[in-house]
């Protein structure tokens, strides 16, 4: 069994699976159950400043989208930060950290954008013995309208400023949680780094309306006939999160900045993908809210088996895929593949044919007896057939060896790497010196 123990900013946890700041981490009862179930750490649900508790709506807080068999693919919420009194949360954090010293205990914070507010709360958090803080600059609903959450996270200067206040006023490591509701994730990440952040975590939820009730004509979740945008999460957001993590991991200005990856982590595979793109830990919420805390057992056994099979340590996996993330212009245009259909595995559903014939390149033929074959002279290797085929591994992409004729172009496959920057059709191509 591979060793899954993790050291992130000096914060140790028995595995890289943390529960994200969210309802599952709102009180000692849940967090203790999570630790018993085997979670490596938690980010306690966001605390606000002392005073009258936060008020939540009293109707539905969540909306969802589903796939086949009502599998939950995406969840959105309009819940706010913790609505429990600050002192209760602080007392429980202290008690849980004392009882579970080997687990990571991060406290998420969101107070008004004034130095005094941050100065006031930080000593109380420090007093709990928590391992670190996460600045919630992400929530897209409710708090952002009050100048907090995403309202801060969308302005890099504010991120830098608040991060600096925190670094100046606490000895605890500071993780800055980023909102994806921006155009380029690198700017807020760079700002966090300039402000002295020890790490960033991402993504927070995405502004969304999950559905519209076609009887009441109200967005879901509906509160008395009205709805508002919520924060979207779950398996559906993973591709967005992976890209943003990768962008930060490979940006020269933020390269090496520790990352805690968040966004649709549902299985060990998802976690491994985040780790390979540079995340040191992952945070999970929707999967736990869908299936309960027990899923961490599969995450641990799966990641461990994978590392054993690869003969890798966990630290070898972190960032392993980052060098392979590049810009489109550097992709090798002499990498030529063709779709190949395994006739023994094919169940003759014809979806590849419908997709290719109706919407792509007319590169699949269909015989009277429902045999589907790729026309190499038409196939541009777009991969759509692979993606719509219901049988895993039935259609694959095979590379044409250098020197082989590409029947579509009528030219042999070139043996050398060549990309857009040097392509003759590129007006800005850099010509080699003659």
């Amino acid at each position, binding site marked *: 069994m591979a060793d899954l123990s993790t050291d992130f900013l000096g914060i140790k946890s028995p595995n890289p699976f943390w529960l994200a700041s969210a309802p599952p981490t709102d009180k000692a009862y849940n967090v203790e159950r999570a630790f018993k179930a085997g979670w490596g750490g938690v980010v306690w649900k966001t605390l606000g400043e002392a005073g009258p508790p936060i008020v939540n709506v009293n109707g539905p807080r969540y909306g969802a989208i589903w796939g086949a068999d009502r599998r939950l693919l995406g969840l959105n919420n309009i819940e706010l930060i913790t609505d429990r009194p600050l002192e209760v949360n602080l007392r429980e954090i202290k008690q849980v950290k004392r009882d579970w010293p080997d687990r990571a205990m991060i406290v998420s914070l969101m107070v008004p954008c004034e130095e005094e507010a941050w100065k006031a709360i930080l000593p109380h958090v420090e007093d709990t013995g928590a391992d670190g803080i996460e600045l919630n600059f992400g929530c897209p609903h409710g708090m952002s309208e009050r100048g907090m959450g995403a309202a801060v996270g969308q302005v890099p200067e504010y991120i830098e400023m608040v991060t600096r206040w925190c670094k100046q006023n606490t000895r605890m490591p500071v993780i800055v949680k980023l909102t994806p509701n921006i155009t380029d994730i690198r700017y807020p990440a760079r700002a966090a780094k300039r402000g002295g952040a020890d790490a960033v975590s991402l993504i927070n939820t995405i502004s969304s309306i999950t559905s519209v009730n076609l009887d009441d004509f109200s967005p879901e979740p509906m509160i008395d006939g009205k709805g508002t945008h919520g924060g979207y999460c779950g398996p559906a957001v993973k591709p967005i999160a992976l890209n943003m993590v990768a962008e930060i991991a490979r940006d020269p200005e933020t390269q090496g900045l520790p990352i805690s990856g968040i966004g649709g982590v549902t299985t060990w595979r998802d976690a491994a993908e985040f780790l390979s793109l540079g995340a040191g830990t992952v945070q999970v919420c929707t999967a736990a809210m869908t299936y309960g805390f027990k899923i961490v057992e599969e995450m641990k056994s799966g990641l461990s088996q994978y590392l054993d099979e690869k003969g890798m340590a966990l630290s070898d996996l972190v960032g392993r895929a980052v060098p392979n993330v590049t810009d489109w212009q550097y992709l090798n245009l002499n990498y030529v593949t063709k779709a190949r259909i395994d006739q023994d595995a094919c169940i003759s559903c014809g979806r590849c044919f419908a997709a290719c014939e109706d919407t792509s390149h007319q590169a699949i033929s*269909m015989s009277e007896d429902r045999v589907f074959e790729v026309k190499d002279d038409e196939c541009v290797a777009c991969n759509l057939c692979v993606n719509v085929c219901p*049988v895993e591994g039935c259609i694959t992409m095979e590379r044409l060896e250098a020197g082989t004729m590409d029947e579509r172009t009528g030219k042999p496959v070139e043996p050398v790497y060549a990309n857009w920057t040097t392509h003759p059709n590129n007006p800005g191509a850099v010509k080699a010196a003659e």
Partner: protein
Amino acid sequence: MTNSPFTPGIAPARLDAQTLSANFDDLHPPLDGHEALVAADRCYFCHDAPCITACPTSIDIPLFIRQIATGTPEAAAKTIFDQNILGGMCARVCPTETLCEEACVRETAEGKPVEIGRLQRYATDTLMAAGVHPYARAEPTGKRVAVVGAGPAGLACAHRLAMHGHDVALYDAKEKGGGLNEYGIAYYKAVGGFAEAEVDWLLKIGGITLHTGKALGRDITLEGLKAEHDAVFLGMGLAGVNALRAEGEGRAGVLDAVGFISDLRQAGDLAKLPVGRNVVVIGGGMTAIDAAVQSKLLGAENVTVLYRRSREAMPASRYEQDLAASKGVRFIFNAMPVAVLGNGSVTALRAEYTRSEGRSLTGTGETFDIPADQVLKAIGQTLEGAPEGIEITGGKIAVTGAGRTSLPGVWAGGDCAAGGEDLTVTAVAEGRDAAEDIHASLIG
């Protein structure tokens, strides 16, 4: 309860009312809303789907399943009825395991096809339960068509003709419409008076007048019908039954399986139906299976199906055979009846093993006796009362194209017509297509 499965001879009430009721309940209970969504989600929405090709009425199955999956079972039902107005019955009685579900790519992939039959029932039941009839008649054409036989072929034909604005006189020899749906389907395949309700629902289109108790050749004649109508469709099925041609066939206790099934379907109280302690069913088709299974469910102690050819050659599907076996029916293959033994009443059936060489079958000379209080003959039905002068081929009415007979202005379809399998769904397709052809000839 006075009797038991061990009561000698032929006796009613071998099982208590509760057991009988459970035995004859829906073979495949309907899907509830959640089950239907789960089942519908498995459909891949294949291109030019093999299930459509496999359906004799070419129902657009992927489309109706997608309509169920998206919460519009009523639209799904319309998709089904557009092709097959008896889609409700076909959902219950079609041998889907040899039609759409056999062709389903998930049968290829996992050996577990999408449950097309049950999904079809979910959709059609939903619409029919609402009591609405989704079709309206076209402007009246003033043309009149006689349809003989209110079974699947006749009903499908009549409905399609009525839709096109023709007036239809629908005749049936029995007291109720529905044909084999009403009289010939195993009880547990269409419970709750479904066949009758379906006929009532179908007739809601209007323009169809049902005349029951009118048999061709007895109460009405083809000449008479032709004189008063612009076209005639014959769909009277196969009313005759083949003879066993074995010594002692006349002994008490030897019955036609068709009659046995019909009595069962029409029985108000199953406990009043007599059944043998030892029942032997002769034959290898669906009628044989239905008679055997129902004998067992009525409380017969031993039920044996005797079929002269091999299991592989049996017309009843492996699925039907397994269903019968699961109910405790025993199969004897490669054996034929040679004599019905007994004194007045049957006591045993003497059978002889067979050997087949190509199509020909010969006895091996080795015989054996099976105890029997009741022998049910399910060895095929024959055409009865075919009008004079009509061309017959292979014992059925010869047809070309969409059911055109040798007589001008006369069409035929369903079991009485040559070609096609003798299935409800095939009869519906033939009735529908003949109606379109009749319509074209009347309007053109």
